[in-house]
C-alpha cells in the first residue's frame, strides 16, 4: 500500500466508493422497484389540481392513486371538478359515476346584528375559532354564525364575503362546494345544499323554543307547524329544529305552504347567493323584481 502515491490512492478510493454505491443503488432500484400504474398519472392530469382535499384524500395525486387502485373509491369524489371531471375519471377507471347534483354552501343562520342578541361584547382576535373558545362566542344563541369570517378566510375560491350585517354571503358563481368552510366553522352552521333546493331553514339553534326565541328573533322555535303543514312529509323535526329533505321538497312540492306558516320566518325560499335579513337580500330581490318585469 505504501508504495502507491497519494493521488492514485485517492483515485482508487473515490472511484471504488462511487462504483460501489452506484451498483448498490442500481441493484436496489431493481430489487425494490414498484410498478406504478400509468393510469394514475392520466387520471391525475384530468383532475383540477386545486389540491383542496374536498375528495377526502391528501391532494389530487393521492385521490388519483386511490381511485385507480381501490375499486371501492368512487370516481365522482372530486367536487370542484363537478360532473365533467367525474365523467372523465369514470371513463378512465371503468367505474360508473352516479349522477351528481351541483351543491352550494349555505349558512344556516339569519341572526344578523339587529336580530340576534349578544351576551357580551367581544373584542378579541377576529376569528370564529378563537371567539368560540370564550363561552361559545358573543351571541346569546350558542348555535349561530359568529360572523368573524373564519370561513371567508378559508375559502380557496374567494367565493365568500362578510356582509356588514355579520353573515357571510356566498357567491353562487364561485362556490365549488368544496366544503372547506363547512369544516373550519366552529359552530357547524355551514352546510352544503343542492342548488335546486326550494326552501331552507335559516336556523341552527337546538335550544327549546322559548330560549331560542329570546336569543334571536328569527330562530326556529321548533313549533313543528311546518312539519304538520307539509303534505309530502318533507320536513322532520330533530333537536327542536326543522329539517327539510331537499330531495322530496324539490321533486314533489309545487306550492311551498311551509313558508307562510312559519311564525318566525325561519324557513325561507332558497335562492343562491341571498342571505336573509341583510341588505344583500333587499338588493337582490329588487334586481329579481326588475328582471321579472
Amino acid at each position, binding site marked *: 500500500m505504501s508504495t502507491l502515491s*497519494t493521488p492514485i*490512492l485517492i483515485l482508487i*478510493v473515490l472511484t471504488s*466508493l462511487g462504483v460501489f454505491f452506484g451498483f448498490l*443503488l442500481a441493484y*436496489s432500484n431493481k430489487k*425494490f*422497484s*414498484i410498478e406504478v400504474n400509468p393510469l394514475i398519472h392520466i387520471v391525475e392530469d384530468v383532475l383540477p389540481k386545486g389540491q383542496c382535499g374536498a375528495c377526502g384524500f391528501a391532494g389530487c395525486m393521492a385521490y388519483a392513486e386511490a381511485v385507480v387502485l381501490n375499486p371501492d373509491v368512487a370516481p365522482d369524489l372530486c367536487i370542484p371538478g363537478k360532473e365533467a371531471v367525474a365523467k372523465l375519471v369514470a371513463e378512465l377507471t371503468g367505474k360508473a359515476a352516479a349522477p351528481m347534483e351541483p351543491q352550494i354552501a349555505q349558512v344556516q343562520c339569519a341572526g344578523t346584528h339587529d336580530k340576534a342578541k349578544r351576551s357580551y361584547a367581544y373584542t378579541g382576535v377576529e*376569528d370564529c375559532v378563537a371567539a368560540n373558545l370564550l363561552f361559545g362566542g358573543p351571541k346569546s344563541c350558542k348555535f349561530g354564525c359568529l360572523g368573524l369570517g373564519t370561513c371567508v378566510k378559508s375559502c380557496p375560491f374567494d367565493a365568500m364575503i362578510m356582509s356588514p350585517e355579520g353573515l357571510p354571503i356566498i357567491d353562487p358563481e364561485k362556490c365549488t362546494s368544496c366544503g372547506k368552510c363547512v369544516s373550519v366553522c366552529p359552530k357547524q352552521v355551514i352546510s352544503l345544499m343542492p342548488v335546486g333546493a326550494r326552501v331552507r331553514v335559516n336556523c341552527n339553534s337546538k335550544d327549546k323554543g322559548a330560549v331560542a326565541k329570546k336569543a334571536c328573533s328569527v330562530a326556529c322555535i321548533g313549533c313543528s307547524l311546518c312539519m304538520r303543514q307539509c303534505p309530502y312529509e318533507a320536513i322532520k323535526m330533530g333537536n327542536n329544529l326543522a329539517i327539510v329533505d331537499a330531495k322530496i321538497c324539490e321533486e314533489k312540492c309545487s306550492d311551498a305552504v311551509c313558508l307562510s306558516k312559519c311564525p318566525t320566518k325561519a324557513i325561507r325560499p332558497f335562492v343562491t347567493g341571498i342571505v336573509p335579513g341583510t341588505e344583500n337580500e333587499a338588493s337582490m330581490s329588487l334586481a329579481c323584481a326588475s328582471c321579472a318585469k
Partner: protein
Amino acid sequence: MEEYLKLFVASAITNNFVLTQFLGLCIFFGVSKNLNASIGMGMAVTSVMTLSSLLAWAAYNFILEPLGLQPLMLITFVVLIASLVQLLEMIIKKHAPALYNMWGIYLVLIATNCIVIAVPITNVELHSNFLTSLVLALGSGVGFALALILMASLREKLQYADVPKSLQGLGISFILAGMLALSFFGFSGMITL
C-alpha cells in the same frame, strides 16, 4: 453509562444543533409551519442522521484513516449520505408504504442538509468510538426533532396572533427562533464535553 447519558443530553439540549449551533435552519423554517409535518420530519432526520453517522464512522475508521486520506472526509461523507438516503427511500417505499407516505419528500430533502453532515464531522473531531457516535447522532436527532416540534407548535399558535404586517410570515418566525435560541442558551454550561 453516565458518560453516554451526558453526551446524549449535551447533543440534544445544551449543544442543540439547531438552536445553539444554527445548523439545519432550512428545514427548521421550511417544515415548522405544521406540527404533524414537523413530527414526521424530526423522525426522518433522526433516523437518517443515526444511520449515516454510523456508516460514516465505519468509512472513516476503516478506510480513510488507515490509508491516511483524512482530507477526503467531506467528499466521502457527502457521497455516503446521498446514497444512503436514496437507498433508504427505495427500501421504505417498497416495504413500508405508510411510512413513506408520511415522510414523503422530506426524506430526500435531508440528503443535502448540513445538519446531517455536521454530525459525522463532529464525531471525527471528538474521536468518537462506535457507541459514542451512535449516542451523539441519536441525541442530535432528538435535539433537532425537539427544536422543530417546539417551533411548529409556536408557529401554529402564531396564526392567531395579531402580527404587524411588515413582520408577517418569515419575519416573525425569525424573531421567534431567536427567542427560542435565547432560551436554549440558558442550558449552556450545564454540561461540558
